[in-house]
């Protein structure tokens, strides 16, 4: 495979692999369905059945099945074959396999959640080049937004206010509103006096910002007090159908927190930004821990409701899901839709002037600014966009788990999302989705099942895979960064940057060996932000 050279035509066309793709998809689907279906397993010879039931084998079968989606995306095959394999796998076989063993759907949803988180962080780190180590905070904001309102917690909060505050709700609310209006008006006045041309004193903005925050706090508090009278009606949370509204609200909440956190810290760069985002991420978690009135502290919130669509439930029932698994089935499809929307938004932003501005900032802040890119505004947009992806998935997470606590949003999670982005390929949309899938499968399925499969061997703990999961995972990360630093599916940019010195005569380099299977034409088209390539539409199908 040749190094991708700008302007050069792909020299070879790989053979059409439609047939191979379909055959592989059929084999892997059959394996998956058989291994997940206890009634079919029981008809097989017991040796074979036991082999398929082995956790490691089952996990590998599932991985093989999911790998088909990657093949469908990357291989040179006709569009109908790709769409067929992608569509059937995602919409039929995976849910079908999941009805007996919910861990399959659970894994799929988990991959979806982390894929969305990675796509969000990819905008911040991969495109805009702002190392954010506290990204999981935005996920927490989304999760708590629904967690508090979708459970009895909101009832508890209201009861607390009913019991503990004097009956001055209207006064506080009106006071907050007045303060809000005054500061908004004064901000406008400041803006008009200062205009765009001259700098306005920092203290004026600080004062106005303070007024804004206090005004909002008072207003919310007042409204909560007013609503406290209705506490009794909300002991099991708001109507589950508000779930849809809260998907939007969580986006807004997470984006606002993104802007709030971003404003003071975005003047910093590199290491300093990383440390301060790490700190602020922890602050959000500690707030969740300590604001016990609202979040129930370290005990967490449970049970959290989830929307349900009656006809969808009857569909699940018809397929053979038991009623307590309807929710998983439903959320799986919600996740698919959200991921599709996120990928679309990501691609569109990326191939626009915003995307170019992000990359320009990453490459050279001073030059970008001198070319007319407003630094703070552009960085804030990156922060808010990334945060909103995490926010919406937070709601899904809360609804899926039915339980959230500050433990779910520790620093480790931020690091692990970052590792997905880097592993997959900074700045590459298909790359980070693959990165999220690989890391999630490794962490949730493959490595634990390796431990389970070897549990009966009574290995000493020093060499027992069950004890060494993190070590294996760490080893994989180190190896990846040594041998393929640009990630699994690097963006064209990264590829061009890192492989400038490659031998252009067509010799395969070690770095290319993973991609060696692939069709150079496709490889050249892993899309380049800022420049529309052909076959955009083709790429949309079956890749999530």
């Amino acid at each position, binding site marked *: 495979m040749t190094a991708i050279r700008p302007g050069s035509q792909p020299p070879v066309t790989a053979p059409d692999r439609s047939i191979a793709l379909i055959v592989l998809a059929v084999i892997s689907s059959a394996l998956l369905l058989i291994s997940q279906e206890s009634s079919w397993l029981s008809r097989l010879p017991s040796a074979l059945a036991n082999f398929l039931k082995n956790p490691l084998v089952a996990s590998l079968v599932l991985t093989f099945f999911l790998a088909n989606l990657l093949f469908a995306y990357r291989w040179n095959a006709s569009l109908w074959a790709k769409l067929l394999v992608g569509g059937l796998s995602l919409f039929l076989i995976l849910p079908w396999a999941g009805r007996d063993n919910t861990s399959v759907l659970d894994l799929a949803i988990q991959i979806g959640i982390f894929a969305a988180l990675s796509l969000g962080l990819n905008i911040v780190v991969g495109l805009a080049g702002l190392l954010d180590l506290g990204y999981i905070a935005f996920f927490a904001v989304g999760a708590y937004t629904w967690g508090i309102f979708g459970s009895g917690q909101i009832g508890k909060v209201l009861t607390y206010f009913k019991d503990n505050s004097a009956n001055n709700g209207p006064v506080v609310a009106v006071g907050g509103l007045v303060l809000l209006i005054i500061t908004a008006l004064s901000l406008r006045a400041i803006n008009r006096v200062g205009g765009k*041309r001259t700098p306005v004193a920092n203290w004026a903005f600080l004062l106005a910002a303070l007024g804004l925050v206090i005004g909002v706090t008072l207003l919310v508090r007042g409204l909560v007090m007013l609503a406290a009278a209705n506490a009794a009606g909300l002991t099991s949370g708001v109507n589950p159908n508000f779930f849809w509204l809260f998907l939007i609200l969580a986006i807004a909440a997470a984006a606002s927190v993104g802007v709030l956190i971003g404003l003071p810290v975005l003047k910093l760069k590199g290491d300093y930004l990383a440390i301060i985002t790490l700190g602020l991420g922890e602050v959000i978690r500690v707030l969740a821990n300590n604001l016990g009135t609202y979040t129930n502290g370290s005990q967490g919130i449970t049970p959290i409701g989830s929307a349900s669509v009656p006809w969808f439930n009857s569909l699940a029932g018809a397929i053979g899901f038991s009623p307590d698994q309807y929710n998983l089935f439903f959320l799986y499809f919600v996740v698919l839709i959200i991921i599709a929307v996120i990928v679309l*938004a990501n691609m569109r932003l990326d191939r626009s002037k915003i995307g*170019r*501005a992000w990359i320009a900032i990453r*490459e050279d802040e001073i030059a970008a600014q*001198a*070319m*007319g890119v407003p630094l703070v505004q552009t960085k804030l947009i990156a922060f808010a966009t990334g945060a909103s992806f995490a926010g919406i998935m937070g709601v899904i997470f809360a609804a899926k788990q039915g339980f959230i606590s500050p433990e779910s949003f520790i620093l480790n999670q931020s690091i692990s999302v970052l590792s997905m982005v880097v592993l997959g390929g900074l700045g590459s949309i298909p790359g980070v989705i693959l990165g999220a899938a690989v890391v999630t499968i490794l962490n949730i399925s493959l490595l634990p099942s390796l431990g389970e499969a070897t549990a009966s061997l009574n290995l000493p703990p020093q060499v027992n895979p069950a004890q060494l999961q993190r070590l294996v995972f760490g080893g994989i990360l180190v190896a990846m960064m040594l041998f393929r630093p640009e990630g699994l599916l690097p963006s064209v940019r990264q590829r061009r*940057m890192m492989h400038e010195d490659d031998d252009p005569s067509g010799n395969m380099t070690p770095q290319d060996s993973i991609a060696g299977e692939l069709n150079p034409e496709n490889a050249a088209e892993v899309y380049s932000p800022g420049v529309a390539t052909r076959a955009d539409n083709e790429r949309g199908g079956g890749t999530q």
Partner: protein
Amino acid sequence: MTGNPVTASSNRASARPAASSTILSIKGLTKIFGGLTAVNSVDLEIPRQSIVSVIGPNGAGKTTFFNMITGIYEPSSGTVDLDGVSLVGMRPDQVTQAGIARTFQNIRLFASMDSQENVMVGRHSRLKAGYIDSLLRTKRFHESEKEAEDVANLMLEFVGLARFRHELATNLPYGDQRKLEIARALATSPKLVLLDEPAAGMNPRETEELKSLIRRIRDDLGVTVCLIEHDMRLVMTLSEYITVLDYGSKIAEGLPHEVRNNPKVMEAYLGRGAAAGEYGKEEILKGGANA
């Protein structure tokens, strides 16, 4: 500025009706870093559609001077007015929006972008499409993208890099990278472009090309050019007006031949002895050698 000899000569190139003959007016511009006065109360008037130069020995404060005009540094005191609008306190992107574009002494291209994208970034501040337009792919988005692409191609053609459109910026030869920076600056549709040592590292043939490129920027695009340069031959043949800085202060200004014969300038460049008439000063300042 009345009485400026360049004003009259620049009128011949004037294609548009000018509100005033001065495009950039700088008064008492000063920058103090701690105890060091990098630029000390410098005045400068740049006539519309002229080519002017700021020269001076290394460390004279030329780049600091540029950085203050473009908003990268905030001046300690002094005023900068572009067409009557004060630029002091503006962010660099606002200065660009107001109509000043620049290139950099040490090339600052976006390494992972190809030439076309680099120039398209220069168009950023002039595009109307915003965040929502990009998300929804509105008509305005498509118009903006087309505009960016068209302007980029036009400017690449203008500087003679059209064939490198899809080449990574870092793969271009050094001299072409400097031209690409100029194309990127021109894509912002500036009134005034500041070139920071555009000829640094260029061979004589490339310098000749650059000379005609700078003239075309003024004549064909109607953009005023201000350059910082060490190449005396280039400065002397190209500039209509020259300002000389030394140790942060303006020590001389005037037409090229006036500056060339100014004893203070000779002293700054060559030392006191040369100024007194030894060591072949004529050769050096006439452009016989690069200072």
